[in-house]
Structures are given as structure tokens and as C-alpha cells.
């Protein structure tokens, strides 16, 4: 896979890899963007800035493409989403400007650390859902509390720790803008663990937010010349097709072992990114 590849070969191979990444990302719920940048830089020797630009574009495509199917379930909370988007878009803008200033080896090291953390988080058992929490005054003022259809009928929930969640979301946005990923891992921490939003609500709301967050940094990336059409095209089309297929064939039984495999892949890629970053190979 050295530079002897022609445009046609390169496009075909990158499209296939992106398709698999999108499929696995959607089946495991871990997102495809997180493996794309390391794959492109490690195996295809793509400059990390081009890889981030292409990944960011694919993140918008998957988030927006999946929104219609998520919406049918009716779990997402549009107010939580919009309120937290203030933090994520602002963070994303800052992250994108930072990305144009810091050295690529530092980008690789941060990316490696995020990958290791995502791998750890995907193996950690989810904390038990706490029900019937008392309403928080700030969350009530911001009208963040809501309800969603559950097996026993409408289940209502009260959002907690709004300032902590908001700050974490700013961080998630900054990482998204810096690394061109959806940063689902940080969003999960913010919404599940800090704000105590029920899982079904937080995953669907977070999906809605990812596209908007990525759009906030995409403008900066495009205008700085990080978005290459020849590279972004197979990445975006491949990831989109893979994730759309993945959302249709969600097989519950297989997901568990698939998650294990995928988190091992994330772990290995994370170590490789750290190595490349520290030894200046990027």
C-alpha cells in the first residue's frame, strides 16, 4: 500500500475500509469516525490533517443520515440537544482553530489518548440507571426535563448537574473539532453519568448533536484546505453506506462480541497513534 496506488485503486480501497468502519461503528454504537483517522494515517500514509478533514465530513453524513430512523423512536429531547449544542459548537470552533496551530505529532498523541479512553469506556459496565431523581432547579428553569415512552408507559426523568454536563460538552465539542470525530465517548460521560439522562434519550439526542457539532468545525477545515475532494469522497460515501446498512441489521446477539472485537481494534490503533506521535512518525 505504498504510493504506487493509482487514484482508482486508492478510491476503491479507502471506500471499502470506510464502509467496514461505518458498518462496525453503527453496529457497536461506538462510531466509525474514531477508527478512520488512524487507519488512513497508519495504513494509507495520509497526512493526519487530510484524514481529519475527511473524517469530519463523514461524521456529518452518518449523524444526519441516521437521524430519520432515530426520530421515529421518539426518544430524543430537542431542548437538551439545542442547549448543549451551544457548548459543543463553541468548543468545536475552538478545537478547529487549535488544530490548525498545533503540531501534527501532538494531534496524534491526543488522538491516541482519546482512542485508549474510548476502548476503556466501551468495556466498562454502564452504571445502573437511577430513577425518580428530584428535579434540579436549573434544569427545570431551562426546561430540560422530559419523558419518553417506556415499556410501562410514559417514563419521566429529571436532568441533573447541568453546569458539569455543559462543561463536559464543551470539551466534547473541542475534541470533535480538533480530531474530526463525533466524540461520542465524552458525550456519553456528560449525558449519562453527569446529567443522568436515560440511555435511550442520551444516545438519540447525542446523535442529533453530533452533526451540528461537526458542521461547526467543518467550515474552518474546508476554508483551511483540509478537506480534499479526492479523499473525502470515498470516505464519506463508504461510511454513509456502511452506517445506513448497520442501522438496518442491528442483531442484538452478535453485538456483544462485535463490541469486544471493535474495542480491541480501537485499543491497538490508539497505541499505534501514541507511538507514531511520540516518535515523530506523523
Amino acid at each position, binding site marked *: 500500500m505504498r504510493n504506487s496506488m493509482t487514484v482508482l485503486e486508492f478510491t476503491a480501497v479507502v471506500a471499502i475500509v470506510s464502509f467496514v468502519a461505518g458498518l462496525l461503528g453503527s453496529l457497536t454504537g461506538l462510531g466509525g469516525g474514531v477508527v478512520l483517522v488512524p487507519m488512513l494515517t497508519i495504513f494509507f500514509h*495520509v497526512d493526519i490533517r487530510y484524514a481529519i478533514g475527511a473524517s469530519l465530513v463523514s461524521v456529518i453524513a452518518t449523524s444526519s443520515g441516521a437521524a430519520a430512523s*432515530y426520530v421515529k423512536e421518539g426518544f430524543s429531547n430537542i431542548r437538551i440537544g439545542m442547549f448543549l449544542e451551544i457548548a459543543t459548537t463553541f468548543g468545536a470552533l475552538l478545537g478547529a482553530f487549535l488544530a490548525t496551530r498545533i503540531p501534527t505529532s501532538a494531534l496524534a498523541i491526543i488522538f491516541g489518548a482519546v482512542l485508549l479512553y474510548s476502548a476503556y469506556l466501551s468495556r466498562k459496565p454502564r452504571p445502573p440507571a437511577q430513577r425518580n431523581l428530584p428535579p434540579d432547579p436549573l434544569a427545570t428553569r431551562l426546561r430540560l426535563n422530559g419523558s419518553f415512552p417506556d415499556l410501562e408507559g410514559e417514563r419521566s426523568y429529571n436532568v441533573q448537574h447541568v453546569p458539569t454536563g455543559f462543561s463536559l460538552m464543551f470539551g466534547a465539542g473541542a475534541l470533535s473539532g480538533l480530531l474530526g470525530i463525533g466524540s461520542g465517548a465524552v458525550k456519553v460521560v456528560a449525558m449519562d453519568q453527569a446529567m443522568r439522562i436515560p440511555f435511550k434519550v442520551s444516545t438519540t439526542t447525542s446523535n442529533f448533536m453530533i452533526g451540528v457539532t461537526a458542521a461547526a468545525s467543518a467550515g474552518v477545515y474546508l476554508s483551511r*484546505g483540509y478537506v480534499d475532494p479526492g479523499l473525502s469522497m470515498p470516505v*464519506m*460515501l463508504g461510511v454513509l453506506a456502511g452506517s445506513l446498512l448497520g442501522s438496518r441489521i442491528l442483531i442484538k446477539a452478535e453485538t456483544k462480541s462485535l463490541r469486544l472485537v471493535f474495542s480491541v481494534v480501537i485499543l491497538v490503533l490508539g497505541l499505534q497513534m501514541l507511538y507514531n506521535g511520540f516518535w515523530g512518525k506523523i
Partner: protein
Amino acid sequence: MPAARAPVPTPQPLQPQPQAQPWDDHWIEVILGNLLRTGVLISAAVVLWGASIYLFRHAHEPADYRVFRGEPSEFRTIHGVIQSVKDGRGRGLIQLGLLLLIATPIARVAFSIVGFAMEHDRMYVAFTLMVLAILLYSLLGSGLGV
């Protein structure tokens, strides 16, 4: 999901109560979801169209992304992209598709303002305007609009 609608002895479980929850979030989310999907499909189609021109012309050239050079201005600004589409360039069309893709979530945010305004929720109209301002700054203020 229909499975959730077991006959529970609650009064009028699914009737839309007049102004109890002011904005019936669901219908607006369905519209937003379809808006997003339509935007993605249109942009994917434009990217594919551009891809076929680009691959037809450049299939056998070497592909090399090892060294970062930055894109030329025709692929970095809205004006440049439109110009290269007019010139019939494949990569210009791909870039136009990507611009449409970026515009899709922004359209969703803009549409949400209408929803919150219809409900007289001034706080959320203000929040949404803030988000829209950040998005438009990124898209137009960072040099893309030049």
C-alpha cells in the same frame, strides 16, 4: 414503538392534550429527521456525480496524500467551488456536495428556530440563534465565504 402502547388504565394516554406540552416535539422531529436525510441523500448524489467525472479523468494517476499541501482556493471557498463546478470539474462537484452536507445540519438548526418561535419559547429561540450564529461564523467568517 407500538409495543409500548399496552392498555394501561391511564386517562387518555395518547390524546394530544391541548397545550399541556406546548410543542408537540414529535411531529417537528419527524420533519427535521426527514430534512436531514433528504439533505444527506442529495449531497451524496452530488458527490457521486462528481466522483464519476473525477475518476473517469484521473483514474490512472498516482494517489498521494502523504504530504500536506492544502487545497487550492478553488476547493476552499464557496465562490471557488461554484466556479469550478461551472467549469465542469469533478472535484468541484464533490466539494459542492460536501458543502451541501455541511449546510444540512445548519438548515436543521434554522428550522428549529421556527419551531420554538411557534411555541413562544423565547429562551430557546435565543439559544438556537446562538448556535446558528456560531455555525454561520464558521461557514462564512473563517474565510470560506470569500
